[in-house]
């Protein structure tokens, strides 16, 4: 009698959504701490930040922005598809999102390995010889984009799980809150990038 007690069963979609939003707030503030660090050093070493940002490839940055924006749109559209009971389109749209995310990560990989190949990475001898502000800029670059990439990986895992749940029907037009929350998480990753992009690539 204790297990599967009907009295304890409880479903509250709005509550789940509020919970997800609160979790997103914690993520925003997690990155917020980094943005605060960025602001302080940018205020202290604006010239160095200026020169260091030249070293980043604005084209790759822009490309990744476009990719992330498109993936955000496809996730949002997949919700529409599920609500219209169009399971196949929903799965295709989620699939596109995952592929775009993968492309983002591949770009990131090449961008990082190029920089590392040039000898610019925390702890390298070249880094130690840079101006202090430039060093901090690259440290921030690695830390912020690294943490962001970690979030992309988490988001990809979540969306993969949801993709399977759409397939077996446990996410459907009546029970869609999981997809909505997964989507919210993915948009959060996008939100962070929208600020990272100009702060790292465009302040030249």
């Amino acid at each position, binding site marked *: *009698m*204790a297990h599967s*007690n009907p*009295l*304890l069963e*409880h479903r*509250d979609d*709005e*509550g*789940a959504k*509020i*919970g997800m939003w*609160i*979790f997103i*707030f*914690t*993520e925003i*503030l*997690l*990155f*917020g*701490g*980094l943005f*605060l*660090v960025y602001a*302080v*050093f940018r205020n*202290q*070493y604006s010239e160095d930040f200026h020169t260091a940002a030249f070293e980043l490839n604005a084209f790759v940055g822009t490309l990744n922005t476009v990719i992330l924006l498109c993936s955000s749109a496809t996730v949002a559209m997949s919700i529409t598809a599920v609500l219209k009971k169009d399971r196949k389109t929903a799965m295709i749209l989620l699939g596109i999102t995952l592929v775009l995310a993968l492309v983002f990560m591949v770009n990131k990989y090449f961008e990082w390995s190029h920089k590392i190949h040039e000898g610019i990475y*925390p*702890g390298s001898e070249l880094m*130690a010889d840079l101006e*202090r*502000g430039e*060093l*901090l800029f690259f*440290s*921030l670059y*690695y*830390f912020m984009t690294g*943490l962001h990439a970690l979030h992309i990986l988490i988001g990809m895992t979540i969306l993969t799980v949801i993709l399977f749940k759409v397939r077996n029907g446990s996410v459907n037009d009546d029970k869609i809150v999981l997809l909505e929350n997964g989507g919210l998480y993915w948009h959060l990753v996008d939100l962070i990038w929208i600020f990272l992009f100009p702060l790292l690539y465009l302040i030249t």
Partner: protein
Amino acid sequence: MAKLDTPALEQSFLNNHGKNPIRAWLFSTDHKRIGILYLLSIGFFFLVGGLLGGLMRIELIAPGETIMDPQTYNGVFTVHGLIMIFLVVIPGLSAVFGNFFLPILIGARDVAFPKLNLLSWWLYIFGAILAISSQFLGSGAPDTGWTFYAPYSTETGSNVVLAVFSAFVLGFSSILTGLNFIVTVHRMRAPGMTWFKMPLFPWSLYATAWIQVLATPIVGVTFLMIVAERLFQIGFFDPSLGGDPLLYQHLFWIYSHPAVYIMILPAMGVVTEIIPTFAKKHIFGYKAIALSSLAIAAVGYFVWGHHMYTAGMSGTARWFFSFLTFIVAVPSAIKVFNWVATMHKGSITVRTPFLYTLAFIFLFMIGGLTGLWLGALATNVHLHDTAFVVAHFHYIIFGGMGFAFFAGLHYWYPKMFGKMYDEKLANVAFVIIFIGFNLLYFPLFIIGMQGMPRRYADYLPEYTGGHFWSTMGAIVLITGALLMIYNLIIRTRKKGTPAEMNPWGGKSLEWTLESPPKEHNFDEIPTITENPYNY
């Protein structure tokens, strides 16, 4: 757990229904069981932290080396702080009594996300294991103090990475608890329970939960930066790489000051529940108390810089933080006045929980008033980083949060376990704890004023008297605490009488349930028409 020898116990959440008891406890999503899991684990770590504190006091009983060398002492005070802060007082009241009583007090069957709740506890245990193992693994116990100030924490050879990472995991656990409580309060109040008909303990938990959610991530990322600083030389806090040590202090205190309110707000909430029950009178100024919790949470978020008056901040920042610090004292004062006013023209019975509550108010006032001395810029310059701070802090955290915890424990014990403890013995333990506490910490105020810095493994002979009496106090306090534990665990198990449904004559919802409650709390969700203080 307790023997199931009464009909009430038979039907209660404590009954495992023949399932493997370890599984039935460790994987239960019942908020009451999770509350008890927290109670046991927090109680255990409290004893460990208390033992370490006792060792520090013995070392300091006389100048010179008594029982440990300075490096051991530095490790011990770091672990004492780490355990007490992150494993005991931050989860403390909200994870134990919040988990157990929040759903009951608002007329719900569980929290909003029961599985997440269980995950929080497991993360807590995982973090605790990391924290403890940081003492033994790697290159030696961390010796940075619980504040992990850079650049010392990025340079010392001891095992900082694991300690910091454990704090990160524990922060995550705290965030999930907070998130759960916010949604629970918003979505699961019983029909008719408007915001201003909600009991005041849930109000304080709600305010606390917001701080947990909004402050913890900042220190989380800061701890990640410390890890990266040590492993990859990112240099954010290392001046030789252009970084700024004060930036670490800003980031750290943006969380760690509000963390003090995570500790004390639920304590205030518990006290606010207890006073009307024993005064048999409506709480004085319900709305003022409810809103002052939010005010403390909101203003308290922005006073972090008062930990850094002497660190080399700008003059503007110094007076700004001092100003806000004084402002945040007002809502705390309002609460004290309202508690005392509730007793006016009541019909008071003095039982064990009420004794602890009276002690709480007295000790909290000492802690709060000495907080003003530290908030004032001029006196702070002299008192900062001295034993005075240690005394002030322990009066707030132990005298405040700790005594409220004991008050809540004695108040809700019969409800939680269905047994009544020996009240005479409990009162004796209370007197010993109260005397021991004051003997332990009051001398630290005096030697602090005389200029005894904190975190000193050794000291000049003029402070010997204060340290000696303080150590005596520690011995008395530990004796009293052990007596309390003996009474609540061993003696009650053998000789405790079955608890009534409503032993104190309270009006809030938990007293309408059996002692202990059934697994689903309410057979029928009650409809609320008034707040629970109409005596």
